[in-house]
C-alpha cells in the first residue's frame, strides 16, 4: 500500500475529547445488587426489576458467543461500571438550563441542538451516557399523538405500553449480550406511533459514551401501530480512550398491519488507534418484528467506527406480504474487526426481503458479512434478494462473506450475489491522469461502491455519511 493511501485512511479521530462533567458512577461489578441499585435509582416498577433479574439469571447460565469472526481478550464484566449519569443540578425545564459544557460537546460533534432541531426539522432525543438530558419537539410530536421520549421516562409515564412490548422481539435470553442488556440497561429511546399516524419529521437520537469504562447499555423500543410510519435516525460518536469500552445495546421494533418503520444508523464510535489500542466493542442486537400484514421494516446502517462490531439488524417477517430490508455499509481500517449482517426470517405468505451489504476493508482490518435468510414452511411465495459486495484497500486486510440460507418452502425464491473488488493503483492512476488527486478519487470510488446504500439514507444523513467515509479512509489507498 502506498504512502498516499496510507495517509488517507489514517486521519485521526475527530471526536476524541472528554467532557468534564461530574458523573454519578456506580461501583464497578455486576451482581443482583447492582441491578437492584440501577432499578432503584431509576425508580422502576416491580415488574421491570423482575424482568431485569430474570435476564440476569439467564445471562449467568449463558456463554459468550465464540462463532463471530473476531478476536479480543476476555471481557471482565466485574470491571465495568454499569451505571453512569451526569449529575443533574436540578430538573431541567428548558434547553437554557442544560450544562453549557454538555452543549459545547454537542457542538464539537457538529450537533448544535437548537440549530439542528430548528433548521433541519429534526427532533433530537439526546442520550448523554445513560440519561436523557434534553428532548426537543416533544410537544409538537405529542400534538399528533406520537410519544417520543427516553425509555426511562416511558417506564414512568407509559408503563403499560412498555410492559406490553419490551422483550417481545428480543427475548431476555435471546443471546449473551441481549441478556446482559436486559439486566442492566440504563436508558435509551422509546417511540410509540398510534394507529394511522405518519410521523411528520425524521426522529433522531445522538448517542455518546462519555465516562471511561462505563459500559453503555441502551434499550430502544419503537412501536408503530396499524398504518403508522416513522423514520428514525441514530448517530453515534464516542470520545477517545485507551481501554476498550463495551457497548451492548438492544433495539426492538414492532410494526403492526400496514405500518412502516425505517431505522437508519451512522455509527462512528472510536475505533482504536492505528495499532489497534482502545476502541469500542459494539455488540448489538437489533431486530424488527413485521407483525402485521403489509408491514415493512427497513434497516440502513453505515458502520465506520468501533474496534469490534458484532451486529445483525434483523427482520422477522410474520405478517403476510410484509417486507424486510437491510442496507449496510461497513468500513474497517487499521485493526478494526467487523462481523455484521442481517437475518431475514420469513414466516408469513408472500413476504419479501432485500439485503444489500457493502463491506470496505483497509489497513489490517477484518470485515465479515454474516447473513441468514430463513424461509419457514408457512412462507409460501416468499422472496429474497441478497447482494454482498466487498472492497479491499491495500493488501493487509481481509473480507469474508458467510451467507446462510435455509429454505423450507418450495415456492420460495432466494437469490444471492456476491463480489469482491479492490481499489487498485490503476484506478487511482486513471483518476490522477485526469487531474483528480488520490483523496478525491478514493472518496469517489467508495461513494460509487456504496451508492445503493446511501440512496436509502435520509438526505442530511447521506451527506454526513459521505463525508465520514471520506475522512475515515483518507490515506488508505495509494
Amino acid at each position, binding site marked *: 500500500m*502506498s504512502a498516499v493511501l496510507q495517509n488517507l485512511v489514517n486521519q485521526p479521530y475527530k471526536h476524541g475529547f472528554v467532557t468534564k462533567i461530574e458523573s454519578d458512577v456506580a461501583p464497578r461489578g455486576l451482581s443482583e445488587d447492582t441491578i437492584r441499585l440501577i432499578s432503584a435509582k431509576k425508580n422502576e416498577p416491580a415488574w421491570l426489576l423482575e424482568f431485569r433479574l430474570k435476564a440476569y439469571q439467564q445471562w449467568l447460565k449463558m456463554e459468550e458467543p465464540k462463532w463471530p469472526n473476531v478476536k479480543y481478550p476476555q471481557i471482565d464484566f466485574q470491571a465495568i461500571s454499569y451505571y453512569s449519569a451526569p449529575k443533574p443540578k436540578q430538573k431541567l425545564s428548558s434547553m437554557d438550563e442544560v450544562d453549557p459544557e454538555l452543549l459545547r460537546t454537542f457542538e464539537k460533534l457538529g450537533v448544535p441542538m437548537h440549530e439542528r432541531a430548528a433548521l433541519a426539522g429534526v427532533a433530537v432525543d439526546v442520550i448523554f451516557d445513560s440519561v436523557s438530558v434534553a428532548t426537543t419537539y416533544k410537544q409538537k410530536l405529542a400534538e399528533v399523538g406520537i410519544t417520543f421520549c427516553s425509555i426511562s421516562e416511558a417506564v414512568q409515564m407509559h408503563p403499560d405500553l412498555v410492559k406490553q412490548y419490551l422483550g417481545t422481539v428480543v427475548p431476555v435470553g435471546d443471546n449473551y449480550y441481549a441478556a446482559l442488556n436486559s439486566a442492566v440497561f440504563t436508558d435509551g429511546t422509546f417511540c410509540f406511533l398510534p394507529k394511522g399516524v405518519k410521523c411528520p419529521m425524521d426522529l433522531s437520537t445522538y448517542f455518546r459514551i462519555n465516562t471511561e469504562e462505563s459500559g453503555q447499555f441502551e434499550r430502544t423500543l419503537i412501536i408503530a401501530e396499524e398504518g403508522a410510519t416513522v423514520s428514525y435516525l441514530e448517530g453515534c460518536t464516542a470520545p477517545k480512550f485507551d481501554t476498550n469500552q463495551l457497548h451492548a445495546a438492544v433495539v426492538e421494533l414492532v410494526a403492526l398491519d400496514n405500518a412502516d418503520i425505517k431505522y437508519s444508523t451512522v455509527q462512528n464510535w472510536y475505533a482504536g488507534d492505528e495499532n489497534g489500542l482502545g476502541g469500542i466493542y459494539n455488540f448489538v442486537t437489533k431486530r424488527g418484528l413485521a407483525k402485521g400484514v403489509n408491514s415493512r421494516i427497513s434497516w440502513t446502517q453505515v458502520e465506520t467506527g468501533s474496534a469490534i462490531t458484532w451486529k445483525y439488524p434483523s427482520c422477522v417477517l410474520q405478517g403476510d406480504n410484509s417486507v424486510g430490508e437491510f442496507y449496510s455499509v461497513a468500513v474497517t481500517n487499521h485493526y478494526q474487526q467487523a462481523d455484521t449482517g442481517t437475518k431475514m426470517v420469513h414466516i408469513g405468505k408472500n413476504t419479501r426481503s432485500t439485503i444489500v451489504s457493502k463491506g470496505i476493508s483497509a489497513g489490517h482490518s477484518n470485515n465479515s458479512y454474516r447473513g441468514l435468510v430463513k424461509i419457514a414452511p408457512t412462507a409460501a411465495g416468499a422472496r429474497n434478494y441478497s447482494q454482498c459486495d466487498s472492497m479491499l484497500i491495500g493488501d493487509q486486510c481481509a473480507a469474508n462473506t458467510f451467507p446462510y440460507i435455509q429454505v423450507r418452502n418450495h415456492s420460495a425464491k432466494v437469490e444471492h450475489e456476491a463480489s469482491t*473488488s479492490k481499489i487498485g*493503483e*490503476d*484506478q487511482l*492512476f*486513471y*483518476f*490522477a*491522469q*485526469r*487531474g*483528480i*488527486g*488520490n483523496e*478525491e478519487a478514493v472518496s*469517489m*470510488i467508495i*461513494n*460509487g*461502491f*456504496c*451508492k445503493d446504500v446511501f440512496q436509502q439514507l435520509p438526505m442530511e444523513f447521506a451527506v454526513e455519511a459521505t463525508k465520514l467515509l471520506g475522512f475515515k479512509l483518507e490515506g488508505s489507498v495509494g
Partner: protein
Amino acid sequence: MIYQDSKTLLDVQGLRATVNGIEILKGIDLTIRSGEVHAIMGTNGSGKSTFAKVLAGHNAYQVTGGSVTFEGNNLFDLEPEERARAGVFLAFQYPIEIPGVANSHFLRLAYNTVQAQRGREELDPLEFEDFVREKMKLLEMNPDFLDRGVNEGFSGGEKKRNEILQMALLEPRLAILDETDSGLDIDALRIVTSGVNHLASKDNAIVLVTHYQRLLNYIVPDYVHVMESGRIIKTGGKELALDLEMRGYDWVGAERRAAAGA
C-alpha cells in the same frame, strides 16, 4: 503538422526507467514541438507503452536516468495529477472501469479540475450536461453513456471513444494515445480518429503509440519513430510506417546493428 517557429513542448533526453528493477527504457531521446503528430511504433515489449506511462507518471515505473521537460519545466517535479492539469493527457490502452461512479460525474470533476487550474470558469452539472453532449456528438456517442459507471460494461470501442471524449473535454497540450486503435472495428476507428483529427491544432501535439500502420492512414503523422529494446532506433516521415507495414520490424534493427558494426 510541422509549423515554422513552433515551441518545444516535450524534450526527452536519455530517459531510462525500470519496473521491478528491470530496465525497460534504455535511453530515449525525443523532441516534440507544438502542432506535430508523432507515431511511435515497434514490436510488443519494445517499451512503447512504458514510455507513455512514464511520461504520465505511473508509479509502478522508476525513472533511473535522463531528463524530461514539458514546456520548459522538469516533468518529474510534478505528481501525475499535476501533469494532467498542466496538459499531459494519456488515452489508456485499457481504460479502467470505475463501477458506481457516474461517467458524467467523473467527466465533470476532471473538466472542472483542469479548468480551475487554467483559471477558467467551472461548470455546474446542468451547464456541463449541455457542454458534454455537444462534445459527444463529435464521437457519435449516445448520451446514455453519461449515466453509466465510468467505462463500466463498455465495449472496447466504447471505452476508446470515452477516452477521446475526455481528450476533447480536457484540451491537453500533449495527448499520448496508447494503442487507441486496438480493438476498434473500421467504423469505430473512423469515428475515433476523426475526433482526434478534429482536436489537433497548432497549439497541441499528439503522440500515437501503435503497432499498425492502419491507424496512420487516418491520423497522418509528421514523424514516425521505431522503438526496439527501450530505445528509439529509427526516425522518419510517414512513409517509414508504410515501409514497416511491408517489411516488418526486423530490418530496422538489422540495419542499425550493421551501421553500428561498420
